[in-house]
């Protein structure tokens, strides 16, 4: 099974599960009654579209697989994504963002910004020099201070540092 087929199967599974789960939620969830037109009419329509789209993807997959034309499912400009790199990058950036924001609330905006930026550059930037690592994060910290504290007046809970 090639990567495109796996991707399409996964997409269809996500669409169908979301759609079916939504319809079950509508059937058994606590929805406040509304006069004449129920309040779930739009979500319900969206769930039907999700299920319909999932079935459509499956039908296309079956059709092209049976005719041995799986390549027709691939977009001409599609590039294979590096899954390992994306998972690592997501974990570092999105997971790191949770820690960063916790640090912002507890340690201080500028200190956390400089530290988090330095970590991201050190891990992500190819051929990073020590000079770049020492110059860029404090510059970003200064920009954040100027833009968000001085110009916008963003309010944050008082933190340990600054």
């Amino acid at each position, binding site marked *: 099974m090639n990567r495109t087929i796996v*991707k399409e199967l996964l*997409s269809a599974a*996500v*669409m169908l599960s*979301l759609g079916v789960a*939504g319809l079950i939620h509508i059937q058994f969830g606590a929805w*406040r009654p*509304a*006069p*004449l*037109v129920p*309040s779930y*009419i*739009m*979500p319900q329509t*969206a*769930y039907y*579209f*999700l299920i*319909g*789209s*999932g079935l*459509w*993807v499956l039908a296309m997959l079956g059709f092209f697989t049976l005719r041995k034309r799986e390549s027709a499912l691939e*977009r001409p*400009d599609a590039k294979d*994504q*590096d*899954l390992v*790199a*994306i998972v*690592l*990058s*997501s974990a*570092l*950036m*999105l997971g790191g*963002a*949770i820690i*960063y*924001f916790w640090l*912002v609330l507890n340690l201080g905006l500028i200190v956390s*910004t400089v530290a*988090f*930026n330095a970590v*991201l*550059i050190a*891990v*992500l*930037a*190819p051929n*990073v020099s020590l000079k*770049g690592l020492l110059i*860029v994060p404090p510059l*970003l910290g200064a920009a*954040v201070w100027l833009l*968000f504290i001085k110009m*916008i007046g*963003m*309010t944050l809970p008082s933190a340990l540092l600054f």
Partner: protein
Amino acid sequence: MLDLLVEASALAFHPYVLMYVMLGVLLGITLGAIPGLSGDMAIALLLPFVFFLEPAMAMGLLVGIYKGGLFGGSIAAISFGVPGTPGAAATSIDGYQAKLNGKPSKALHTALYSSVIGDTTSDLVLIFIAVPLAAVALTFGPIEFFALYAFSLILIAALSQGMVAKGLAVAAIGILLAMIGRDPITGATRLTFGMPGLSGGLSLIPVLIGIFAISEVVVQGSKLWRRKVDKLMDDVAEQASLLQGYDISKDKLTWAEFKFTLKATYIGAAVGTFIGALPGAGQSLAAFMSYGLAQRFSRKPEDFGKGSLEGIASAESGNSATCGSTFIPLFAFGIPGSATAALFGAAFILMGMTPGPSLLTDNTEIIYALFLTLIFANLVNLVLGKFLLPYYSRIAMIQPGFMIPGVFILAIVGTYAANNSVVDVWVLLFAGALGVTLRLMSFPLAPLVLGFIIGPGAERSLRQAMIMGGGDWAVLIKSPIAIGFYVAAFALILLFTFALRAKK
């Protein structure tokens, strides 16, 4: 009318507004020229700042970024063969070849002039068409409006990367995200799953920044991590070395050459303006269709693909001509036809203006000032481009390794700053993760944003129409205008399916 024009001019030509336009163009070109970053991302990042600026200044800044970003994309496309934005992909075909043939200056100047001509044409069409269309839209009832929303959703879903099923599914997800929070009629909370922080619904800013900017920087971050950019930077350095010993005086665009490209530019302007007005069709399709048509009508079709200036002009003009016309559905009907229009629609909402037919009647001065700003921004683009073109190519060499982490942090802090809300930061990260997942599974993102923005309006129209029809779905096809929209959607999908097949 004259009074209105004077008042709008006073707003549009206020020194601060002019300054913001220039700043926007410079920012847009800078970000557009760096592969991986785009004007849309910059607009999304700047949305939180819209709160703190006067509407005319905020619009000036966003318009400048949009226009600068469109042209900026062609700089990397011509200089290094790496399109800075998806719309510049067609420009890179001949642009990069022209550069390799020792004509980078001619190529960049052709791109600049055709971009400005295409863009201005499109802006003029917007100015003269949006107002009468909005007047027509004011006569629409809920049935017609629902048909219009359905028309836009179907069209944008079908035309986004040519993946109808995935486009429709992702538009449905966008609508579902918009349904989170209080039901406007019963007041009960929906789809919050017991989380009180969601009872107010999802804010526009974290969803838009998450979907567009966060997911993009995460994907770019993964490329950096794999040292793919290492190779790119080597290429860039290698290409830059090709220019050593290059004599710019022998590479000036002559009047005769410019005149020769005009036909291709006009073809691009016409095609781009038409495509831009259709929800979902986008810059990339406009550029490739313009390129194909210009080749068909060229006196030298054999030069296309080998560094033809006509090829550059048609692609760049087609790409830029979507700029003004993409706002036509937004201003006339309140429907953002593209990701950029969705971001502008969000900016209007943040400034307290509702996109749609009433936008023009309720905020006439601001909208006319915006029209003037659109034209002025083209002039700024032309002048800045003309004088700074020799330096712009270097912008594309800024290391993304330093830019991407900065953009990521600004997105987080900017989202928090907009409402001082911690919930918004969690929504941002969730939207970012959703965006990355959708990108991985090759779902188009624009229909999701369109569904999220027009979801509440579509729901309101649907419920009103159903109440009018006593709960009978057949009411939705009782209006001839509504039927016209459904037929038009079907016809346009067929038309573009054949056009895309021809392109392949």
